[in-house]
């Protein structure tokens, strides 16, 4: 078993959704994550706020305020899952509801010491 990270990008158009649609969207994410957890493959993760944030860059550590990227590039959260290989990890990622909102999931291998 290795660890893999899902990086969620985009899908932030739910900002303008109605309460009922927000609840429906929340339930889809919950069902998907609960299912990964039920398989014993969920390691952890956190959502990231679309609000305040800073980007530090360059030698001078130039500081700029968010937004940090175009809407569909903004990272909205991450999840770490256990899987036997990258293919199984990618397979788990396919169930993510973010695709309904034009977002993407980047699947990366977490390097082990």
């Amino acid at each position: 078993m290795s660890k893999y990270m899902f990086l969620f990008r985009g899908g932030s158009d739910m900002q303008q959704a109605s309460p009922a649609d927000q609840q429906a969207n929340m339930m889809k994410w919950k069902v998907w994550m609960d299912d990964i957890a039920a398989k014993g493959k969920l390691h952890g993760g956190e959502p990231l706020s679309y609000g305040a944030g800073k980007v530090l860059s360059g030698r001078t550590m130039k500081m700029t305020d968010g937004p940090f990227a175009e809407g569909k590039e903004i990272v909205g959260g991450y999840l770490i899952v256990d899987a036997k290989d990258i293919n199984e990890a990618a397979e788990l990622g396919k169930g993510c509801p973010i695709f309904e909102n034009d977002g993407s999931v980047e699947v990366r291998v977490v390097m082990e010491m």
Partner: protein
Amino acid sequence: MSTPEEIGTLTDHLFRREAGRMVAALTRLFGAKHVELAEDIVQETLLKAMHEWPYHGVPDVPAAWLHRVARNLAIDRLRRESRGLELLKENAALLRSEWTLSSTVNEMLNAPSIADDQLRMMFACCHPSLPREQQVALALKTLCGFGVPEIARAFVVSEETINKRLYRAREAFRALGSIEFPPPSELAPRLEHVLATIYLLFNEGYNSTSHQHLIREDLIEEALRLCDLLTRNATTDRGEVHALLALMLYHAARSATRIDADGSIVLLREQDRSKWDGELIALADHHLDRAVAGQAMSMYHVEAAIAAVHAHAATFASIDWRAIIGLYDQLLRLNPSPVVQFNRAIAVAQADGSAAGALALEAVKGMEGSHLYHAARGDLLRDQGRVDEARAAYTLAATLTRSPAQNELLRRKQDACG
């Protein structure tokens, strides 16, 4: 307040319902002028829940979590922006001082007072200065937590139309200043406006020409919920409120049998009475009893009494049409409208035969543009064996409705004319 059943579970309409409750409470805090600020805070609260709950689990008491987040966001916004906001005189000083800010917000956004905030908001949304279609759109948006696409779907109009209605409604709404109960001297007429809007909401759900089954049920549920809220407050717990609730409950009890699995209309005569919801009928009886205990007699009283006669008839044949005609006579004295005359004529046809009914129907003036009128005329002609005239009446009726279910029903009737 959360009931024990709510703890740890998520009801279907939690976000929508809590959105309405939080907007009401926040609008009272900030004043009508800042209703959009209230809506922003609620939107941000729900987004936070949408993002966090899948990762961290649904909180034990979801509503309490939402309210706490909304309170904190409100305090943050006031801390940063209160100088720039035109606050209501009575809270401005309290909300601008760091000493009293948190405690004032917490006190005003506490659970027990939210039911009253919703009622105040109901009176504000149904203010006579707003045209009724704007009242309904505003009530659905702010009080019921519907989104613009959902309201547009419910009324089968474009989102742009709803946005325009909301824009104009909000302008009038902001001018109201504070959100309060009407003074006792104005309560009865203002309550009439509220009830008329609730009934419109209900009818839109009940008779809607839209095929969207779910949105129709949502409207019915919201109308019942708002009316029920009115019965639970001492100021608005009045006979006509119970009467309207009874009326809507009698109708709602039959709603499942009015449309068959294919979405076709099932006539009253053919409805499966065993599938009528006995619990809702019992609840309706309860509210009708409470209604007649009140002092005033409203149209809703009589209409509920008519619905009760229907609801309690075991079979179509055992409907007491004499009693119904008597009630329509009462209703005509309160509201001498063509629709009431029309309904009375239908009852006459049932009690005294199609010839007597046709005579009564001929006397009705002002319904010539309605498909219901011509469909009923067709039925009475058919029953008298005048099939050619009946077919022509059905054809005319079909040109007057755009509802697919109504058109389908009329086609079936035309076919039956041979």
